[in-house]
């Protein structure tokens, strides 16, 4: 009896669960399908009015849907924000903004399977799937007819935006307008050194690797009892750049990944078997034997690495800022400026020009497009075009004059301390609409400069950056006689192929297998080389070279040469 009851109970539960799942699906479908339907009448009316030579803009209210996979924030109607309200006044268009919950690929996959898309879509990493599914409409003709501002902003990049069939399907977010304005703080790789080391020796100028380690050694010797770690690195999972990439930067190249690319011939060269790598590892071997190197570097996982840096006992390390950001923020929270780090452009020799800063580059594999489900692409493209007017770009990035930013008598934008504080507050950013508008829309790239010389991005405006520096920041900047942290670095040279690491290599191709194999060999031999007794170094290096040359180095370089040449042709070729 009990068994029977139990089985009935479990059956009921199973049934209810199935039913619930079905019904929630239905709800999802019906709500998404009603939205476009309700807007249909107004959009039906619009084509006729826009077709007639349009002396007056069509401002009939209309609501479109926009799914933005780039960020995870609460859904909202764009006219609920101050910026969105202003844009609606100008165009009559309101957007129902939707953001993913959970896995983006699953969500996009479902859209593709059902063929039911939002009007506007920014699919983030799933963009290849959307393009494969032919879910975006070509924008070429629309831009020609209705997009003078789009043409102005994106025109120079048309070649890179075109897909294989010659059509433009989406608008990326990194089209730089005006002069390129680099970020004032370091966002890329650098040799980091703790500020107390510099302080103790009167802020010396450090250019070479030897100077860098000499200073760390001097400091460590003077503080023997403090249990300090001289230098640490990370090789965990894919986070191996801290040890693999340093020779490239030390030799005066920006981050092109596995290769360095000659400025003149545009030939790529694997540097892992070059003298630069040998020199770097030999130096690490040397400091390891002086007890300065953190032996657990090669076994630590990412958490352990961050914890180590957060402890404030590490004097130096080489890495990319975004990788150690969490740890540095932890140190900042302690308020002890001595434990904070300064990023330095260290190179091998005095005469090498450092190239740590990323050259201006156009990221062409992210963007926003109009889908085949869109009812009225013309209104949407007009809305996009309107956004790209300079005054609207200012509003979207800076907000409203007198509320979110100020303008001094020379026309320079700045923020009061209260406004800087308010910009850090999520609630304010959502209310004004920065959260929803300052990325993932057709836009000037964040490194852009406005026609009056102000920076487009708030945090790249020197005045704002200056005002957000701490006392310690200002102090150390003045000691080195620079305005911003990036002033310590050389200006990046123009490299049309940059960054080579982002050039897609065919999945499962010999080149990709080479990348994996060479990584395996490096991961095996680098620790041996660094932790060896100094007299064994050369022997292990020869063994490593022997192993490495078994791989198809030439083949990989040839593949890269071709890909780089293609990219250069795309970037520099005349727009057609």
């Amino acid at each position, binding site marked *: 009896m009990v068994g029977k009851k139990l089985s009935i109970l479990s059956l009921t539960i199973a049934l209810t669960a199935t039913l619930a799942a079905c019904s929630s699906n239905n709800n999802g479908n019906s709500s998404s399908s009603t939205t476009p339907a309700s807007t249909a009448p107004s959009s039906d009316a619009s084509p006729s009015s826009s077709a007639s030579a349009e002396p007056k803009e069509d401002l009939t209210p209309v609501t479109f849907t926009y799914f933005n996979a780039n960020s995870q924030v609460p859904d909202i109607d764009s006219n609920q924000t101050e910026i969105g309200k202003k844009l609606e006044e100008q165009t009559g268009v309101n957007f129902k903004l939707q953001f993913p919950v959970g896995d983006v690929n699953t969500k996009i996959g479902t859209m593709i399977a059902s063929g039911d898309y939002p009007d506007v879509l920014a699919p983030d990493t799933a963009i290849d*799937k959307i393009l*494969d599914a032919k879910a975006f409409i070509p924008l070429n003709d629309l831009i020609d007819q209705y997009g003078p501002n789009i043409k102005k902003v994106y025109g120079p990049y048309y070649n890179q935006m075109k897909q294989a069939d010659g059509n433009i399907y989406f608008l990326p977010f990194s089209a730089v307008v005006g002069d390129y304005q680099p970020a004032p703080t370091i966002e890329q790789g650098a040799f980091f050194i703790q500020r107390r080391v510099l302080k103790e020796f009167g802020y010396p100028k450090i250019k070479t690797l030897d100077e860098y380690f000499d200073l760390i050694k001097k400091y460590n010797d003077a503080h023997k009892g403090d*249990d300090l770690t001289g230098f640490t690195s990370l*090789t*965990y999972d894919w986070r191996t750049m801290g040890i693999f990439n340093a020779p490239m930067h030390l030799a005066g190249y920006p981050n092109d990944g596995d290769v360095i690319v000659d400025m003149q011939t545009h030939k790529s060269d694997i540097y892992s078997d070059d003298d630069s790598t040998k020199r770097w590892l030999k130096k690490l071997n040397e400091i390891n034997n002086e007890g300065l190197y953190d*032996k*657990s570097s*090669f*076994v*630590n*996982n990412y*958490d*352990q690495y961050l914890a*180590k840096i957060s402890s404030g006992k590490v004097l130096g390390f080489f890495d990319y800022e975004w990788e150690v950001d969490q740890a540095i923020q932890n140190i900042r929270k302690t308020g002890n400026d001595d434990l904070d780090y300064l990023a330095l452009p260290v190179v091998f020799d005095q005469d090498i020009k450092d190239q740590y800063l990323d050259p201006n580059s156009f990221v062409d594999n992210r963007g926003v497009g109009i889908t085949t489900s869109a009812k009225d692409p013309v209104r949407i493209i007009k809305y996009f075009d309107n956004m790209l007017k300079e005054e609207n770009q200012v509003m979207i990035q800076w907000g409203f004059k007198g509320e979110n930013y100020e303008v001094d008598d020379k026309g320079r934008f700045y923020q009061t301390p209260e406004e800087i504080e308010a910009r850090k507050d999520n609630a304010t950013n959502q209310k004004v609409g920065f959260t929803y508008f300052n990325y993932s829309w057709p836009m000037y790239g964040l490194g852009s400069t406005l026609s009056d010389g102000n920076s487009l991005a708030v945090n790249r405006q020197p005045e704002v950056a200056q005002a957000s520096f701490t006392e310690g920041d200002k102090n150390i900047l003045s000691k080195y006689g620079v305005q911003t942290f990036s002033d310590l670095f050389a200006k990046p040279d123009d490299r049309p192929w940059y960054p080579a690491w982002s050039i897609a290599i065919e*999945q*499962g191709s010999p080149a*990709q*297998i080479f990348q*994996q194999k060479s990584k*395996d060999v*490096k*991961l*095996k031999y*680098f*620790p*041996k080389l660094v*932790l060896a007794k100094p007299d064994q170094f050369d022997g292990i290096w020869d063994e490593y070279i022997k192993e490495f040359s078994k791989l198809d180095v030439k083949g990989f370089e040839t593949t890269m040469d071709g890909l780089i040449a293609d990219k250069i042709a795309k970037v520099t070729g005349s727009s057609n």
Partner: protein
Amino acid sequence: MRNETVTTEASPQAVLQPTGIKRFFKLMMRQKALLAMSLPFVIWVFVFKYVPLWGWTIAFQHYRPNLGMFQQEWIGLDQFRFLFADDSFIRVLRNTIAMAVIKLVLGFVTAIVLAILLNEIRIIVFKRFVQTISYLPHFISWVVAANLISTALSIDEDGIINKVLMWLHIINEPVLWLGVGHYFWGILGISEVWKDVGWNTIVYLAAMTMIDPAQYEAAEIDGASRFQRILRITLPGLKPVIIILLIMNLGNILETGFEPQYLMGNGMNADFSENLEIFVLKYGISMGNFSLATAAGIFKTVVSFILLFSSNAIAKRMGEERLF
């Protein structure tokens, strides 16, 4: 079933005893409620266990996810050739088997020993306490567990293993445990035992409760010592469970798991830590080469199949308990 036939004979039509298809449909009609109830599960098994076998075909293709079934390029056994010809394959296979054997042997021995020891404890509170403590690590995910282990093994100030060993003067300077390839199998074995020993004892403890207490009483009267009782009564009582579990585990021998090796592995111990799963991840899934991943999966299945059937056959030959 027996009840069923009794009623059949009682009913007038069944006296004729229809045979073949006719009988089949008759039986089916009579059992339609049962059949209807089992149908969803048969469909479930079919959809989730048999339909995916169709996916094995991609091991023989140059598979591209955006193309349909008939647009795929067929390449025969190339993926298998790549797999078996790769230099690292032998090493990876060796690691997989070695770690599996270590895990199997160590896991069995420790779980049985712990179960017997627990069984001998008469203070129930203490027994429950030990049991709870020993199976708690089972519920920690490997991500957390690997962090705990690598912290304990580190040469920094929180590396307790090195500290204790230094204090005991067993070693003179901290050892980079995870940096020496030869240690990895041992570390993995001990970690697995720490994590799962308590959990694995449960089934043995359950099996022990099935042993008739009268046997123990008789043995005690006959003057058997405690050790003799374990050897002559408890262990033979456990034998069927042990053999069944052994056969089942042998079938999974190439499934050495992925998480501990991946999370504790690094360049320095890769020669010993890299197993088949990590190889497949590196050269298959992360390169979008699903065909290779599938080929490796098929290889594993075939090996498992052979092991499972041969161990089962051996058990049968020896007249022991067996799976089927």
